[in-house]
């Protein structure tokens, strides 16, 4: 008996072909292991199914149908929702706004976060460094809606801190959120302030994993300052930079709360003035819940999803060629 035992694949052996087919896991130990495993993931799986996958599937369904929340009848319309969208100037305007927003916010946040991380790393042995780190991270843990309201006051053209600072610097004052040209940049400023802490912490984590001896080898090799940073540090934190850029891109493409809060309220409906801050996620929200065109909104969501997926894949392809060196 003992001599035959090793011929049986071990229950825990993931590589054995038998375990790729769960219906072959007839042995009691395997069944019990599977039950326990699925039992453990079940609660979160249920939450995900009900609140995430099911709505997503439903969205996929109504994007191709004419669907009304007040009637049970729905008709298949093929790509008509998409065709309608492409004919709407506001849809293109929202894509343009989103693009502008992403193209500014992602590089600025990434660079600022990297700079802050390098600075915090330099001073990490000084007393109070932990506090500085906490202060940089703090905005990110504040609720967007609450701090957005504070920033509405900061951006107030008459009494706000922003214009006060410009005045003190002898610069022309701006209309900020009430200006067609400055409303979106105002949102960008808020977003950078709110999110830079998260990316700073990510960069700090990345910098902490740098192989110390490689940096010392660079020092011994006579490199310092910019050369050492550009040729050694930057390539080595490539993977974390990639992660930060992807995360920032996805986050900014989906920005909603601060735009809704900052540009709503005293300035009329969110997305203004004159649709200058109407990004795609805001338009999706308004289309669905203001104008009740759920099918159109769903189609728009699909487009946004496809865009994010495409951009992330493009970033990944780029990163595979440039960033990962192992």
């Amino acid at each position, binding site marked *: 008996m003992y001599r035959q035992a090793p011929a049986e694949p071990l229950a825990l052996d993931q590589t054995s072909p038998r375990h790729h087919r769960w219906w072959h896991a007839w042995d009691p130990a395997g069944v019990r292991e599977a039950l326990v495993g699925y039992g453990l993931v079940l609660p979160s799986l249920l939450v995900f199914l009900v609140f995430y996958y099911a709505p997503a599937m439903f969205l996929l369904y109504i994007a191709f149908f004419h669907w009304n929340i007040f009637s049970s009848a729905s008709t298949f319309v093929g790509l008509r929702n998409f065709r309608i969208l492409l004919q709407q100037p506001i849809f293109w305007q929202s894509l343009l706004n989103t693009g502008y927003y992403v193209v500014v916010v992602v590089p600025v946040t990434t660079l600022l976060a990297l700079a802050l991380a390098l600075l915090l790393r330099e001073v990490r042995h000084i007393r109070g460094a932990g506090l500085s780190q906490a202060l940089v991270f703090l905005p990110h843990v504040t609720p967007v809606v609450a701090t957005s309201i504070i920033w509405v006051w900061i951006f107030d053209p008459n009494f706000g801190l922003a214009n006060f600072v410009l005045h003190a610097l002898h610069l022309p004052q701006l209309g900020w959120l009430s200006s067609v040209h400055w409303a979106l940049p105002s949102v960008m400023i808020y977003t950078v302030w709110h999110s830079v802490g998260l990316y700073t912490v990510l960069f700090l984590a990345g910098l902490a994993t740098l192989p110390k001896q*490689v940096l010392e080898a660079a020092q011994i090799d006579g490199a310092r300052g910019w050369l050492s940073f550009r040729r050694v540090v930057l390539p080595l934190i490539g993977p974390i930079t990639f992660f930060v850029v992807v995360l920032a891109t996805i986050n900014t493409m989906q920005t909603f709360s601060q735009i809704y809060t900052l540009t709503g309220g005293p300035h009329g409906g969110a997305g203004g003035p004159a649709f200058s801050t109407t990004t795609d996620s805001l338009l999706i929200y308004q289309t669905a819940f203001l104008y009740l065109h759920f099918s159109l909104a769903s189609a728009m969501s699909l487009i946004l999803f496809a865009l994010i997926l495409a951009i992330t894949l493009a970033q990944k392809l780029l990163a595979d060629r440039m960033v990962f060196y192992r």
Partner: protein
Amino acid sequence: MASIRLRTVNKQFGARHILKDINLDVGDSEFVVVVGPSGCGKSTLLRIVAGLESPTSGELWFDERAMTKVPAHARNIGMVFQNYALYPHMTVFDNLAFGMVARKASRPDIQHKIAEVASLLEIESLLSSKPGALSGGQRQRVAVGRALVRNPYAFLMDEPLSNLDALLRERMRIELRRLHDRLQIPTLYVTHDQTEAMTMADRIVVMRDGVILQVGEPEVVYHRPATAFVAQFLGSPPMNLIPITVRNGDAILHNAASTPVPLPPEIRHGLDAPSDVSMGFRPERLHLSSASSVGLSISAKVETVEPLGSRYHVHATWHGLPITWVTTEVGIARSTTLNLSIPWDELHWFEHGTGKRLEPLRASEMSLSLEMV
């Protein structure tokens, strides 16, 4: 004129005193190996010379230049790290070139020099690979090449062979030494491996707890260790140390029976009596007693025999005290009792407690060959 001089160098990390009043010279074209157990401060010593740490007090000189305050990037030394610390994102060529690029050498110069170093180390075929694709031995060569390419003032090596397998380590040991003989660059080499220290060094520095115990040529340090610690640290298997008390001309073994062993007068006179000392002898200096043997005779009860092919490590007891004998004699059987002996002048004596070497036989010669710090 020494190339690298350390003068009363101290290093403290908070309350921990890592290096205590280190004085050390590395001469022109000298190969100095610092050896000691982990935590003895040898790596910190090397890092201070490299400029990666600054001493709490003391001075560092390269020839006539005060280097204590000079930053690492301006010291022009070549360093080989234990884990090689190659730039993982660069090709071997770029790894080698980086130091020259940092010093703004011209492209043709760089290419010429790299070609030269690559052929010296036989890594020409690897130049376009990245470190991840190399074997341990190849990485080791690249790391040496990187240190070499800039014509460094000195070579610092921090346990460069400890990540290699035994066979490769043996080969690289010889290669590194040969390289040094060819290039004649002053080298400070840190290791915990006493074999590396013995085989590679012009001079050995033995350290423990931040203090240099002994500096000297390998043969001298091996045959006349300054302390009991040095005696046991160098040599494998380590020197047999038998704690005894000298009383009435006898060595009283510290075993259950307090067995007395008579000492000859010339040794007896050299040792303060009564005193606690350790009596040491190298395992390979013991031999089977014959009619003509003079010296300490030891009746050893064999417990285990480790065959190593070329020799045997015989673990035995002598009046209940464990001793080791290294021999080429075949056919030593377990549980037999052998009569071994060792000449009196092959015995080492160390003060109990301090571990300091005593010279009962040759007190007058002591100051000549030992460089005690």
